[in-house]
């Protein structure tokens, strides 16, 4: 066999194999919980609490049906007197000796999550882009303290902020409203958004705008037509980070909302079936809730580091 010329810095192929096996092993084990949630969402409530746990179970959509509906139990005589079920999900409900009582609140909670997530992301990106541009191009007092400011706002436990915000919202009538939560999430995201966006803007050479301004653009036009298109990737990355934060946030949503504006995270743990927690329905809700984030993570993978370290590490 011919010896392959090999740089002393390049790991040997044995070393690579070893590394690969351990890393893949870790990845597979750490993904088991996620796979299990997904599988549970397609099980019947009985299979979900089988002892010992089943690896393969007959697939069922009961979890998803139970997630979106409320049901009530009826006696056998009453059941026999009912007209035959009209839809596939109604027959799934009947199989559990129950009848449909109406839609559940899950779709409302999910819509709230979407509304509040996108609303607050939009606001923090619009305001954040403007502020970041000013920080990047003009002399603004206090600019150097910004990262420190962000870090110190992150040091406040969420409950500590929730106390005065709860009182403030009560005065302003913003408790349990979409506007209240959108404003709060915007503020929490804003400092991070400004910092991340400023990093992206710093990477756009000033000469581009100066050239445009020599050609007769005003500063505002140069900002709109030259800087914004250049910053598109950075803006997209930052928006996804803001969106994920608002999507995953739990403490504020738990304490500041109850009926109308509640988002999905405080709702999912409370999905209850007969005789305890309805695991397949909860798994179904969790699957629907986690999917968008999984997609975004894959899209973001190149910029993930920058976002999760508040821009302290740039690649």
């Amino acid at each position: 066999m011919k010896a392959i010329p090999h740089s002393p810095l390049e790991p040997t192929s044995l070393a690579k194999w070893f590394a690969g096996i351990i890393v893949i092993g870790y990845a597979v084990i750490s993904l088991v919980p996620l796979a299990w949630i997904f599988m549970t969402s397609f099980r019947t409530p009985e299979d979900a609490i089988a002892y010992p746990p089943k690896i393969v179970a007959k697939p069922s959509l009961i979890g998803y049906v139970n997630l979106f509906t409320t049901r009530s139990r009826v006696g056998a005589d009453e059941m026999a007197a009912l007209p035959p079920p009209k839809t596939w999900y109604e027959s799934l409900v009947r199989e559990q000796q129950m009848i449909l009582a109406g839609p559940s609140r899950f779709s409302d909670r999910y819509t709230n999550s979407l509304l509040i997530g996108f609303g607050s992301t939009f606001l923090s990106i619009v305001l954040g882009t403007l502020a970041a541009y000013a920080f990047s191009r003009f002399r603004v007092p206090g600019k150097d303290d910004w990262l420190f400011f962000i870090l110190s706002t992150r040091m406040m436990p969420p409950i500590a902020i929730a106390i005065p915000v709860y009182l403030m919202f009560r005065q302003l009538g913003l408790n349990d409203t979409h506007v209240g939560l959108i404003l709060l999430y915007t503020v929490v995201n804003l400092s991070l958004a400004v910092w991340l966006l400023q990093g992206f803007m710093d990477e756009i050479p000033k000469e581009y705008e100066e050239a445009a301004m020599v050609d007769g653009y005003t500063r505002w036009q140069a900002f709109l037509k030259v800087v914004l298109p250049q910053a598109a990737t950075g803006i997209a990355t930052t928006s996804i980070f803001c969106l994920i934060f608002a999507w995953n946030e739990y403490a504020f949503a738990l304490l500041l909302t109850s009926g109308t504006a509640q988002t999905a995270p405080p709702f999912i743990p409370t999905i209850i079936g007969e005789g305890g927690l309805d695991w397949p329905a909860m798994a179904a809700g969790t699957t629907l809730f986690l999917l968008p984030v999984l997609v975004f993570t894959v899209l973001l993978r190149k910029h993930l580091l920058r976002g999760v370290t508040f821009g302290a590490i740039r690649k």
Partner: protein
Amino acid sequence: MKPRVFTQWAQPAAAVPAANLPEPVGGNAHRASGPVSGQRPLLARQGLSDRALAWLFVGPTVALLLAFNIFPTLWTVYLSFTNYRANHPNSEVVWQGLSNYKRVLNDEAVWEHLSVTAHFLCTSIALQLVLGFGLALLLNRKFRSHSFWSTAILLPMMLAPAVVGTFWKYFFEPQYGIFNAIFRFFGASGDFTMLGSTQLSPWAIVIVDTWMWTPYVMLLLLAGLRSIPPYLYEAAEIDRASEWTKFWRITLPMVMPFILLALLFRSIENFKMFDLVDNLTNGGPGSVTELASIALKREAFEKWRTGYASAFAIILFVAIYGMSMVTVNFLNKVKQR
């Protein structure tokens, strides 16, 4: 391009990596027009002065932060000196001076919660650093498909901690949970109840937090490893340094700022940990997993002792702040070397 640690504490405006920027359309044409000699100053042609524009751009952000960030913080400070109770908004508010602070610091339960928090903080972060560093070292060997697997490993840290906590309750279930089933599969007697036993449940929250956040540490340290210039290893190779020496003399010192940064961010996050543990154990059994944040929520929103809770919150903030300052100072020292 080499990843570098950019922190305001050390090097605010570091060199701009411009290599990944697209060439502007017609950008060269402007420069080709020659030195701008007899031109009017740029300002003359603008609608608004830069100064006005700067204020206009920064204004809304500063206003929002003042209203919903600075003001509430100051209000918490004010409340911490009073006997205010949020469920009795109309009763008289009495200024109590430092008595809330004295009561918090003399409360044995508070010290209990702080020690639970300290145990959680130290064990989970130590585990995450060891596992994360190991994974980063292995991933840095760039085996085939390494980038796919590194993305797969990152997934847990992006999920909602509240939902993660809820589902781990299902996994830890003694009979039908998979955690015990896996132990039974390997022959252990799988009768232990992770969330029901006072000995095991502090470790249950450590396990879940480690599962969730090891990827974060790995991501940071991998960036650290990739920032090491290869010529250091080439020089070491020429000097016939052993692998061991290379690790202690090159790898570890060069990655140190990244390790400290991971330590900083993880310790801030875990000190104020709430959503995951609130759903996983809700502080129980008894109060063996009642972290400071969970105790704070009970005081503020269940017992409605708003003044007392505010004082507790301020104390926690000061503790987190102090801990972070120590790490940041250490980070700056390491980076200056």
